[in-house]
């Protein structure tokens, strides 16, 4: 059974047994999934209100006035644990219900010791990757230190004082720009995902039931980026009309190079130095990276040092040997930059298991390299029926959070999500993608994927076929 997270309490079942919204209830709030779930539990399934509460929470709960329901319980339940972990708090103060002596202010904040994020998964190689723990994140912005990594010659430590960006080739005024120079231009701030075109490849080639969202799709992250439009820089350099492609080169040991069509510079390409309110992380190209919103990660050249304008692509190793898509008709697609619409449920998902029957928030992220996500549908029955999920802010070429309430009866189930973007493109099944491209194509894999839920609450990775 599936309910809506955005509606108020639901009194009526619709034809399919799915929840219809009703008006007039002030308890449920669209931003508080846990409260919604609690109310649904009480109102609809007859499960005891205290069913999912931590042991020992009730007496604390009684001590707090004015707090009710799951939210109150959740807050109180964390307090005694927290007090034990704080140094220098007097036992008297700590035992006073609801009071907790605090630590002093700090120069750099740290995450709660009670909620460490799942770490990335470094491979320990010079040509390596590490994956974003999608299953331990909420919302849409990826904390900068959890942004995925894919490097072809390690992470260089570049001094911004000496770093230069050179723009040359088919320009009237070849330019050498320092990082400080770049910050003088008109700047913009935008939220966009970056996704490696190999994201999903491991699961496509060798799927395993114990794969987490991090393992299947952790080569995508979403950040707020600040920088200067490439069009501004090309105008400054006097880009010539004949220029149809440009080459972007990194200052890492492999001198990463990718050819990019000029149209992308005119559209929305940026040279960025800011990420989520601070300087780019070294792993994301400090001090400068190219950002090509919606286009495969590799072309978003990091540690950017040079832009050359020309009339044809250079056919670098990374756009020929790698990141091309062999097709079933005996050809291979080249310069397949755009990442098609895709979604993944991040909760519930491996490594979690469902401890309790009843209402659960099914939530995940969807994105498209072609623009906004307009719809995400969720199925709990392996794709037989689909139901619209609620969408968080849907920015173009950015991760979009979706969520939906699901009442787990204890029967085996298969949870799937399917994204649609503003062009009308619908995330395909694995079979549809294979029919279109062939079984040998592994980059740009956006097929519908999800999670099998077993009767015992165990969860396993699942492809929709």
């Amino acid at each position, binding site marked *: 059974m599936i309910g809506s997270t955005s509606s108020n309490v639901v009194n009526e079942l619709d034809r399919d047994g799915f929840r219809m919204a009703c008006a007039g209830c002030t308890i449920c709030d669209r931003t508080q999934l846990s409260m919604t779930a609690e109310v649904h539990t009480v109102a609809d399934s007859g499960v005891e209100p205290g069913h999912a509460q931590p042991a020992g929470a009730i007496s604390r709960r009684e001590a707090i006035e004015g707090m009710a329901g799951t939210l109150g319980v959740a807050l109180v339940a964390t307090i005694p644990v927290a007090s034990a972990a704080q140094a220098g708090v007097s036992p008297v103060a700590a035992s006073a219900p609801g009071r907790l002596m605090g630590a002093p202010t700090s120069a750099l904040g740290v995450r709660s010791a009670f909620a460490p994020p799942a770490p990335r998964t470094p491979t320990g190689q010079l040509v390596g990757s590490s994956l974003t723990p999608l299953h331990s994140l909420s919302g849409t912005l990826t904390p900068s230190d959890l942004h995925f990594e894919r490097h072809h010659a390690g992470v260089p430590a570049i001094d911004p004082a000496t770093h230069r960006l050179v723009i040359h080739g088919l320009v009237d005024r070849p*330019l050498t720009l320092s990082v400080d120079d770049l910050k003088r231009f008109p700047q913009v701030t935008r939220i966009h995902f970056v996704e490696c075109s190999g994201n999903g490849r491991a699961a496509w080639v060798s799927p395993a039931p114990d794969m987490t969202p991090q393992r299947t799709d952790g080569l995508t992250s979403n950040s707020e980026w600040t920088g200067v439009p490439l069009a501004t820089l090309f105008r400054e350099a006097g880009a010539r009309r004949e220029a149809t492609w440009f080459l972007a080169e990194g200052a890492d040991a492999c001198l990463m190079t990718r050819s990019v069509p000029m149209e992308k510079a005119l559209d929305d390409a940026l040279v960025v130095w800011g990420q989520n309110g601070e300087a780019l992380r070294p792993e994301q190209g400090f001090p400068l990276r190219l950002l090509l919103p919606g286009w495969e990660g590799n072309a978003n050249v990091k540690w950017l040092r040079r832009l050359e304008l020309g009339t044809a692509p250079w056919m670098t190793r990374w756009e020929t040997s790698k990141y091309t898509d062999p097709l079933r008709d005996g050809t291979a*697609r*080249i310069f397949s930059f755009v990442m098609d619409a895709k979604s993944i449920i991040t909760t519930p998902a491996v490594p979690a298991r469902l401890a309790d029957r009843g209402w659960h928030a099914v939530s995940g992220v969807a994105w498209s390299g072609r623009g906004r996500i307009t719809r995400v549908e969720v199925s709990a029955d392996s794709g037989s029926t689909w139901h619209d999920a609620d969408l968080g802010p849907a920015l173009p070429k950015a991760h979009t959070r979706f969520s939906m309430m699901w009442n787990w009866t204890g029967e085996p189930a298969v949870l799937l999500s399917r994204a649609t973007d503003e062009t009308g493109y619908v995330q395909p099944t694995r079979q549809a993608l294979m029919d279109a*491209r062939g079984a040998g194509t592994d980059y740009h894999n956006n097929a519908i994927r999800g999670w099998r839920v077993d009767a015992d609450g165990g969860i396993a990775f699942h492809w929709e076929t």
Partner: protein
Amino acid sequence: MRRIPAWIAVGLVVGCQAADEGTAETPATWGIGRAATAADIATLDLDVAPSGAGLPPGSGDAVRGAALYQAQCATCHGVNGEGIAPNPPLVGREPREGFPFGNDPKLVRTIGNYWPEATTLFDYIRRTMPLTAPGSLSDPDVYSVTAHLLVANEILPAGATLDSASLAAIRMPARDRFVRDNRQGGREVR
């Protein structure tokens, strides 16, 4: 061009040099940065195009290249270019017919059966290999190792020599297999 102000689009499309006079708020140039000197560009500009543009003078030969390969590359890529995981193989012509990579995920894509341009090999080796000492090979060394790998992939005859003209003239077996992206959003899955 949705989000780019009209003055930028017009400037680039119509040709900046003539059309773009700028305005009081957005002058034709901001005057930021300095002119890149020939030296600024020359120290960075290594790239080689399929036309052969950017290939340096000099030459190399496959016999020298084989020796260089054994000394500097074989520890990672194998004595016969077979690859030692995680380092990729560098030699392989099979399958010679039909380019069936789209249907068989087990086929290994190599220089001999998949790379469309020989100039890519020179460019990549010069900029990136050997992995832990990139940039350490001289241009004649890069020509030599490139010649060796093209011989090993049965694209050049044994003992071949290579310079800018002969390298740019090579047609790789997979040259005509690459097609531009025809995905365009909308209902169709491609």
